[in-house]
C-alpha cells in the first residue's frame, strides 16, 4: 500500500467500503497499527502535526481524514504543509465527496503519488443495475435482467439498502437469481413489510403476523418503521370507527383518508370494539418506547405489541 491514499467521489457507500479495505490491508501489514481519526469540521490548527509526529512507543500510524470537502481552513493549511514533507512511517488516508473545497490538497496528494480510489455517484437505474450485477458477480452469482430491475425498483432508492438486499439474496438463495426470488424477498420494502404485518395483526391473524415480523427482523428490517405503521393503522381504525355511519367518500374527507382506506377499515372493524383498539394503541406506544431504547429487546417488544393486537381482535 502507498503511504498516501485519496478516496474521492460522492458515493458514500463506496467511500466507506474503500476506507474499510484500506484499513484492513494496513492492519494486515502492521498488527499494532494505531488509527487516528481526524474530524474535518471540528479540527483545530496543529492537531495534524501533533498526530503525525513519531509516537513515544514507536509503531505504525494511520491518519484518517474523512470528508475533506467539509474541512475547516486550518486543516487545509496543515495538510498542505504536511504534504510538502510527509512523515515516512505515517500513512495518510483522505476522503473527499467532491466540490472545489480543499481542491489544492487533492492536487498535492496526486502530485505526491497518492494511490487514488474512485467513489463515483451511482444515480441512474442503469448505474444501479450495474452495481447489482457487480455485487452478485463478486460472489460468483448471476441474475436475470427482470430480477435486477425488480430489485432496483424495490430498494434502489438507497444504495446501502440495495447493497444489503444483494447480500441477503447471496446468502439466502442458490443458483441464478430470478424474478420470483426477488419478489418473495423484496415485495418487501420496509413500509410494505410494516403494512403486511399490520394487516395481518388487525385481522387477528397471529401466525401470519408473527411469521412476517420474524422474517422482517431476520433480514435486518428496522423495528421503528414497523411500529410506526402499526400505530397509523390503528389510528385509522379508530377514526373510521368514531366517524360512524355515512358514505365512504364523506367519511374519507372527514378523517383525511382515501375512500378505499375507509372501506378497508370498515371491513376490518367488524372484528373490533373501541376498547380493544384503545388497548392496542397503548401496547404499540409501549413497544415504541422500548424500541427507542427504553427496553433491552426491541424485537420482542414489537412482537408483544403484535400479540396484544391479535388477542384484542380475537375477543370478538
Amino acid at each position, binding site marked *: 500500500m502507498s503511504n498516501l491514499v485519496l478516496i474521492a467521489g460522492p458515493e458514500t457507500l463506496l467511500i466507506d467500503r474503500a476506507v474499510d479495505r484500506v484499513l484492513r490491508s494496513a492492519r494486515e501489514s502492521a498488527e499494532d497499527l494505531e488509527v487516528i481519526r481526524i474530524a474535518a469540521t*471540528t479540527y*483545530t490548527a496543529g492537531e495534524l502535526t501533533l498526530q503525525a509526529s513519531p509516537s513515544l512507543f514507536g509503531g505504525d500510524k494511520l491518519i484518517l481524514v474523512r470528508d475533506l*470537502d*467539509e474541512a475547516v481552513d486550518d486543516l487545509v493549511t496543515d495538510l498542505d504543509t504536511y504534504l510538502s514533507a510527509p512523515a515516512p512511517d505515517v500513512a495518510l488516508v483522505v476522503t473527499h465527496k467532491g*466540490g*472545489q*473545497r480543499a481542491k489544492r490538497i487533492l492536487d498535492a496528494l496526486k502530485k505526491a503519488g497518492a494511490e487514488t480510489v474512485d467513489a463515483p455517484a451511482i444515480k441512474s437505474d442503469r448505474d444501479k443495475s450495474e452495481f447489482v450485477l457487480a455485487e452478485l458477480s463478486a460472489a460468483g452469482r448471476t441474475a436475470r435482467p427482470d430480477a435486477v430491475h425488480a430489485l432496483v425498483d424495490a430498494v434502489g432508492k438507497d444504495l446501502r439498502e440495495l447493497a444489503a438486499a444483494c447480500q441477503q439474496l447471496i446468502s439466502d438463495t442458490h443458483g441464478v437469481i430470478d424474478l420470483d426470488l426477488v419478489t418473495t424477498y423484496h415485495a418487501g420494502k420496509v413500509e410494505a413489510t410494516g403494512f403486511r404485518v399490520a394487516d395481518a395483526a388487525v385481522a387477528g391473524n397471529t401466525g401470519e403476523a408473527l411469521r412476517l415480523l420474524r422474517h422482517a427482523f431476520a433480514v435486518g428490517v428496522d423495528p421503528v418503521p414497523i411500529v*410506526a405503521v402499526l*400505530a397509523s393503522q390503528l*389510528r385509522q381504525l*379508530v*377514526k373510521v*370507527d*368514531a366517524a360512524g355511519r355515512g358514505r365512504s367518500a364523506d367519511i374519507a374527507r372527514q378523517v383525511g383518508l382515501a375512500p378505499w382506506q375507509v372501506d378497508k377499515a370498515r371491513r376490518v372493524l367488524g372484528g373490533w370494539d*373501541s*376498547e380493544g*383498539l*384503545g*388497548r392496542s*394503541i*397503548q401496547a*404499540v*406506544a*409501549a413497544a*415504541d*418506547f422500548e424500541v*427507542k*431504547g*427504553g427496553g433491552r429487546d426491541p424485537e420482542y417488544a414489537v412482537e408483544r405489541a403484535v400479540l396484544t393486537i391479535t388477542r384484542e381482535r380475537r375477543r370478538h
Partner: protein
Amino acid sequence: MSVWDDVVGQEQAVAVLDRAVREPESMTHAWLFTGPPGSGRSNAARAFAAALQCASAGCGTCRECRTAMDGTHADVTIVATEGLSIKVKEARELVQEAARRPSLGRWRVVIIEDADRLTEQAADALLKALEEPTPRTVWMLCTPSPEDVLVTVRSRTRAVRLRTPAAADVAALLHRRDGIDLSMALYAARAAQSHIGLARRLARDDGARTRRHEILTLASRIRTVGDAVAAAALIASIADEEGESSSAERDAAERARLLETLGADPGARTQPPHIRSQLKALEDDQKVRAKRFARDMVDRALIDLLSIYRDALVSAAHAPVELVNADHRGVVDQLRSTLSPEEILHAMDAIGQARERIDANVPPLLALEAMAVSLRLPR
C-alpha cells in the same frame, strides 16, 4: 431602586451575590446559577453582572447597570443559544475573550445562559479557563440543575440555587416591570406555575390563553377512544402551531445574518460551496431546534394538563392549597366528582408516562394517544 428588584422570590441567592459584590473576599471567579425553568437564572446572572460593574453595587439606574442588564455592556458577554448546542469553537472564542482585561468596566463577565447545551468538548475547552482564572474575569453559567454540566466544571464553580418563586412575587414583577394589570398578572403567574417567561406570555398573548384553555378543557371532554385519538391530535397540532409561529421569522433572520457575516450575496441563485455548507449546517441546527421546540411545547401542554388533575386531587382532599387553575374551577370540580382519587392518580401517571416517552423519542402523537386513552372519563 436596585438591580435586584426584578430577581423575585430569591432572597437567599440575592444575599449571597450582594455580599460577593461588596466584600472582595466573598467573590469568586466562576458561578453556576441553577433553578427550575422560568425561575429567572439568566436574569439573576445579569443583575449580578450589573452589580459588579456598578460603582454603587447595583443601583439599577446608572449606565453601567442598565447596559449590563440589557446585554449591551462592552465587558459583559451573554451567550444565549435558544436550543442550539454550544460548540467547541464557540467555547474557545469565549475563553480567548475572557482572557482580556475589562475595557472600561470593573470586571469582564461572561454569562452562558444554557450551559447545559455545551457539548462535552466545549465544556472541556472552558475548563482550562475555569482552572486558571484571569484576575478580573467572572464566569456565570446557567443551567436547570447542577447535574447538567460536567462534574469537572461543577466542582470549579460556586453554586447559586434559585427556587420557584411564589406566584404573588411573579405577579408583582409582571405588574411592575411589564405594566400588566395586577389581576391578570396574578392569574397568569398562577396558571404558569410561576414560570416567569410563560406567565408573561399568558398575560400578554390572547392566543396563548386560548390554547391553554383548550388543553385544560380536554380533561373533561375525553369519553371514548375516538375522543382520545382526536384529543391527542389536537394537543400535537396546538404545539406545532405554537412552534411554527415562533420559529419562521427567527430562522429567516439567522440565515440573513449568516450570509451577511460570510459576505455572501443574499440574492444569489446558488451560493458557492463553502457558503452552502455553512447554510446547510445552520439549517440542520434549525431543524433540530424546531423539533426540540415542538417537543417542549407538547411538554408544556402536558404540564398544564397535569396541573388540572393535581388541582382535582388537592380539592378532593380539601387541602388548604391554592388551585393552579382557579379559572377552570368547573373542570376541576367535574374531575373531582367523576373520578376517585386513585383514578386521578392513574391519570396523572399516564401523563407522566407520556412525557417520559416523548423524552425518549417516541413520536409525540403516539405517546399522546396512549395517554389520552387512559384519561377517558367514565361514560
